[in-house]
C-alpha cells in the first residue's frame, strides 16, 4: 500500500523530514510526499480561528483520484469540526483520506518547554492512528495500542507507538497484512 503525505501550508521542513524518515521505516511500500492545492481559505472559520477538517478532506478527495494509496494531509494549523471545539485529526473510516494537525502536539503548548523528540513521537502516533481508521480500525481499549483514543496530549504520550496484536489481526483481515516492516523507531 502506497502512502502519500501531503503537507499543507507546512513550513517546518526539518520536522517534515524526520516524520517522513520515521514513517518510511515503518512502511514496506513507498512513502511519498506530494503537494495538494487544497483550498484552505474556504475551510477557515474567521469566528473560530480554526480550519474545518471535514471540508479539507472533501477538497482533497477531488484532487487525489490519481493517487493509488492512502493520502494524509499534514497541517500546522488548528482543526475543528463544527460541533467540536477542536480535533487532533480526522479520517475516513475505511477510506483513503485523513488529516493530522500538529498544532496541539507541541510540548511548548503545555509545559512551555520545547521537546522535539516528543513532538515527533506524538505526530507519528497520530499519523498511524488516523491511518488506522483508514484501514478500518476503530478505537482500541489497550493502552499499548496506537489506536487508543486520546483525550488530550498526555494520553497520546501514554499510549503505545504501534498497533496492538488484536488490531494487527484486524488489519491483516482487512488486507493490510504486508504493509509494515517494523515497529516505529524508539
Amino acid at each position, binding site marked *: 500500500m502506497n502512502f502519500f503525505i501531503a503537507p499543507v501550508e507546512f513550513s517546518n521542513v526539518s520536522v517534515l523530514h524526520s516524520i517522513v524518515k520515521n514513517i518510511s521505516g515503518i512502511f514496506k511500500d513507498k512513502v511519498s510526499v506530494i503537494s495538494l492545492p487544497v483550498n484552505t481559505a474556504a475551510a477557515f472559520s474567521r469566528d473560530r480561528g480554526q480550519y474545518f477538517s471535514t471540508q479539507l478532506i472533501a477538497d482533497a478527495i477531488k484532487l487525489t483520484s490519481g493517487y493509488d494509496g492512502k493520502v494524509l494531509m499534514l497541517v500546522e494549523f488548528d482543526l475543528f469540526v463544527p460541533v467540536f471545539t477542536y480535533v487532533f485529526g480526522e479520517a475516513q473510516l475505511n477510506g483513503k483520506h485523513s488529516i493530522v494537525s500538529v498544532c496541539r502536539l507541541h510540548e511548548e503548548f503545555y509545559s512551555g518547554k520545547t521537546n522535539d523528540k516528543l513532538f515527533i513521537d506524538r505526530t507519528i502516533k497520530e499519523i498511524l492512528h488516523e491511518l488506522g481508521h483508514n484501514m478500518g480500525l*476503530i478505537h482500541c481499549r489497550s493502552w499499548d495500542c496506537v489506536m487508543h483514543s486520546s483525550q488530550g496530549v*498526555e494520553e497520546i*504520550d501514554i499510549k503505545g507507538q504501534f498497533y496492538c496484536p488484536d488490531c494487527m489481526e484486524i488489519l491483516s483481515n482487512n488486507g493490510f497484512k504486508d504493509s509494515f516492516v517494523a515497529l516505529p523507531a524508539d
Partner: protein
Amino acid sequence: MKNKTRILIVDDEKIVRESLLHWFEEEGYEVDTAEDAEAALRTIDKGKYELMLVDMKMPGMSGLELLDKVKEIDKDTIFILITAFASVPTAIKALKNGAYDYITKPIDPDELAHIVEKAIHQRALRQENEQLKDNIDEIIKPDNLIGESRQMIKIFDLINTVAQTDTTVMIRGESGTGKELVAKAIHINSKRKYFPIVTVNCGALAETLLESELFGHEKGAFTGAHYKRKGKFEMADGGTIFLDEIGTVSPKMQIELLRVIETKQFTRVGGNENIKSDFRVIAATNEPLENLLKEGKFREDLYYRLNVFTIFLPPLRERRDDIPVLAYYFMNKFNGAMNKNIKNISNEAMDFLVNYSWPGNVRELENAIERALVVGRGDSIKIEDLPFHVTPNNRIDDDGDKSLESMEKRHIMNVLEMNNWNISKSAEALQIDRVTLYNKINKYGFRKS
C-alpha cells in the same frame, strides 16, 4: 475489546448529526441518527438504545419534551442533552427531570468522551447492583460522621448511593469537615468492605517517597530499600484506596496516578513485574482544584478521572443545626474516655457553640469539647470551660498574650462595647469597613451579651 453500546443521536442539524456519528463510530459504538424528536420516537423500543444524545432546541418537539416521552418508554436510557450556552438553565431543569447530563456546543471531544464513558459505566454498575441495593437499608456511619441537618441527610444519601457502585469519588470540603470519615463510610457500605481501605496522605510525602509508598519498591531499588515492599495500590487490592490532599501531588506523579487509575496496573519502583490490583479510588481535597487547573498545576485529564462523583462537605458554620447533636455526641464520647460524668451543656455555652464560626470545623468542635471536659468541674459544660478567650460578659481576658491577634481581639471587643455594639460606629472608630468588622466578629466568635 469493542464497545457495543447503542447510541441514538437526535439533532436537526445535519452537520452535527454527521460529525457526532463519525466520532462515535471511531469510538466503536453502534450509532443511529434521527433528525427530530418525532423521528426518534418512531425508532425507540424499550432497550434499543442505551444512550441518547439529544439537541435541546429542535423544531417541533424540544429535547426536554422528548426526555419525558423517552423516560416513559424506557427509564434506563441515558439521556444527554446538547445545549447552547443560552439554554444551560433549561438543561439544569432537564437534569432534575432525569437527564443524565448536558454538554454545551461546541462540544469538547474530551468532555464528550468522559461523559459518555462515565454514563455507560454507571449504567452498568446500576444494573449490576440492583439486587444488592435492596439489602442495604441503613447506611453504616463511622464514629463522628453525624448530623441531622438537611445538608447531612443529603450527604448520607449520596454516600449510600455511591457505596453501591464502584465509581471513583471525589470528596471536597474544608479541613476538619470529615472527608476521611466519608471515605470510610463509602467503603464499609460497599461490597469491598471485607477488603482494606488504604489511606494515603499525598500532601505529607515528598515525590520520591510518595512513589514508593504508592507503588512499592523492590529490594535495592534505592539507597535504604533493604526489603521488597508492597505499595498502597497493591495493599488496596479488592478494597479502596483513599488519596487525601490530592491537590498537592506533583505533575509527574499526576501522570503516574492517571495511568494506574486507568489501567489498574503498575510496577514497583526498581522492578519490572507488571502488578495488577483491583481497587476503588476515593480522593479528597480541601483546595479548589479548578484554580489549580487554571494555573496548570493539576492535569485536566486526572481531574476528570477523579471527579466522576463529587461529594461536597459543608463547613460546620453552614450546618449549625448539627452543632448541638455533635457537641453532645463528643461530650458522651469523652465522658467515656476520661471516666467523667458531665451531663449537659449550659445554655450559654451552647449558644456560643452554635454561633461561633468554627474555622477548624468538626475537628475544632471536637477539640473544644475535649478541652471542656478536661478543665470542667461540676456536671455541665460552662462557657468558661470552652477554649476561647471569652467570658460571659464578653470581656476578653488579658491573659498576658501580647500577640497582635490577641491585642486586636481585645481592642475590637472594647470598641464594640464602647459603641454599644453599633457596627457602623465601631467600624468608623476602628477605621475599617463594616464587612471587615463583621468578618472579625465572626472570626473571633464575639457576640453581644
